């Protein structure tokens, strides 16, 4: 039994459509795994299954040996799984800083009563929160924008803030949904470095869904390919690049 994330025979059905069927793969602690596939292959659905937005029709999902399905999204986040959203879901009316602060809430020792009495322990914790939030924002070059509204950020910064916010929950596994979408090549290079950096610094396992092959091939240690909800290949970037089924799925022609 491996410790990281383990999916076995996971299936979800919407009406008559099997969006994901009999999917199995795992992400070991500290590993960086890519999940790729053509549009509509079910990648985001896999994220929604892991994070409790959907419940699988069949199959098992375990994280650190504990079953995931049946728990609410916030409970799964507490187990140590955090995610970003493909279609950016920041808290748009909150400031950049408060977006991060909101994500730290589950690690608070103080509760609602302390926020009323505002005692020394509360003040101290608020300050250490602030320091940690700033540290994370700084890594992603967002510290100067801390008081801006999240919605006023440009597209790339919004994507970066999504990652910072997910990191603020102190995850062991980070799920990134198309983090490079809409970024220019230079930004993408920066992003790749940042993902490697945070992975090492915070000892994260990362599961990455991404369209940009350069990004995926550049940083992933292992890649799983799905098409129509079914896994068609898994292996190192090199193995995937010359896998006939993968080439067929992407180019729509047989590789022979």
């Amino acid at each position, binding site marked *: 039994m491996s410790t990281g994330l383990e999916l076995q025979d996971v299936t979800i059905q*919407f009406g008559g459509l099997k969006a994901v069927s009999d999917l199995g793969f795992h992400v070991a602690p500290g590993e960086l795994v890519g999940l790729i596939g053509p549009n509509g292959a079910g990648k*985001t659905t896999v994220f*929604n299954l892991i994070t409790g*937005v959907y419940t699988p029709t069949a199959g098992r999902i375990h994280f650190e040996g504990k079953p995931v399905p049946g728990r609410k999204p916030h409970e799964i986040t507490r187990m140590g799984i955090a995610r970003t*959203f493909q*279609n950016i879901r920041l808290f748009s009316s909150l400031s950049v800083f408060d977006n991060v602060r909101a994500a730290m809430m589950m690690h608070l020792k103080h509760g609602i009563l302390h926020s009323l009495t505002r005692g020394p322990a509360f003040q101290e914790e608020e300050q250490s929160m602030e320091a940690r939030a700033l540290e994370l924002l700084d890594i992603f070059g967002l510290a100067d924008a801390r008081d801006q509204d999240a919605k006023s950020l440009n597209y790339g910064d919004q994507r970066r803030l999504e990652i910072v916010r997910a990191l603020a929950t102190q995850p062991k596994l980070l799920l990134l949904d198309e983090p490079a979408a809409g970024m220019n090549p230079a930004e993408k290079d920066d992003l790749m470095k940042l993902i490697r950096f945070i992975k090492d610094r915070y000892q994260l396992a990362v599961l990455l869904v991404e369209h940009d092959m350069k990004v995926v091939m550049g940083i992933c240690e292992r890649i799983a390919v799905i098409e129509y909800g079914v896994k068609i290949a898994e292996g190192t970037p090199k193995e995937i690049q010359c896998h006939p089924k993968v080439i067929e799925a992407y180019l729509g022609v047989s590789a022979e």
Partner: protein
Amino acid sequence: MEQFLQQLLNGLFQGSIYALIALGYTMVYGVLRFINFAHGDVFMLGAFTALGLHKAFGPALASMPWPVSLILILLASMAICGALGIIIELLAYRPLRNRPRLNVLITAIGVSLFIEYTAQLFFGATQRPFPELIPRTPVASTGGLTISVAQVIVLATTITLLIGLRIVVMKTRMGLAMRALSLNPTASTLMGVNNSVVISFTFGLGSALAAAGGILYASLYPSIEPFMGIQPGLKAFVAAVLGGIGNIPGAALGGLIIGITETLVKGYGQHFGIPSGYSEAVAFVILILILVFKPSGILGKTEREKV
């Protein structure tokens, strides 16, 4: 037993009016995904329009047989209120397309209050007698059951309008456009549906049905006032939710269930220790129960938010 049947029939008449109003809620919710709070007030305006028309054309109408004058008044009031519904949508709701739903909800509350208090300014706050458009004489009283002409007409009109609506929605191009819009507004535009026209049409149709409901209601309970739409409006909304909001047969079914339950509580509640006055709250208790056990309603489908 006769008494029970009588109660059941009364509930049926009451429920058929709720059903008419519920249709408007459900249609508007189907295409725009918001609760048109002002719908119950269009119901009230329907009754007042009929009263006004009856006063203005009294002598001419009096010379006709009552079914003819009833149909004329009904159709004219439906047309006027339908137009009013279209205007309300145009002025208050259209500028808010694609705004947060809460803003639209607040506007709808504003529109509702505006109609009520403006009507109060013009018509006064006191109850007014409603003309006898339909003879209130009993038509049948066999085996202890009494049914009035008005009740028969109410049921017949409701059934006619329901069938008519079903035909409009299922058999016409406009109905097809309405269904397309409710499934996916973006895709329907891409397929050449003019969403604005469809939305106007939906409001017009819903408001016309509400006006008909108002006239029929006033024929059963012939005294009207500017706030008369609030209670039936809320109950009809509950009916729409009970049947599955967005679902037309569901709204009709929900209306009947609410009407019958309410009458039964009024008639028999005291045998079970429930004062008859509690019938006013029955609809809301039902609402809370549905939302707890089956939020999608009896015939509705569950909607998933796209993540």
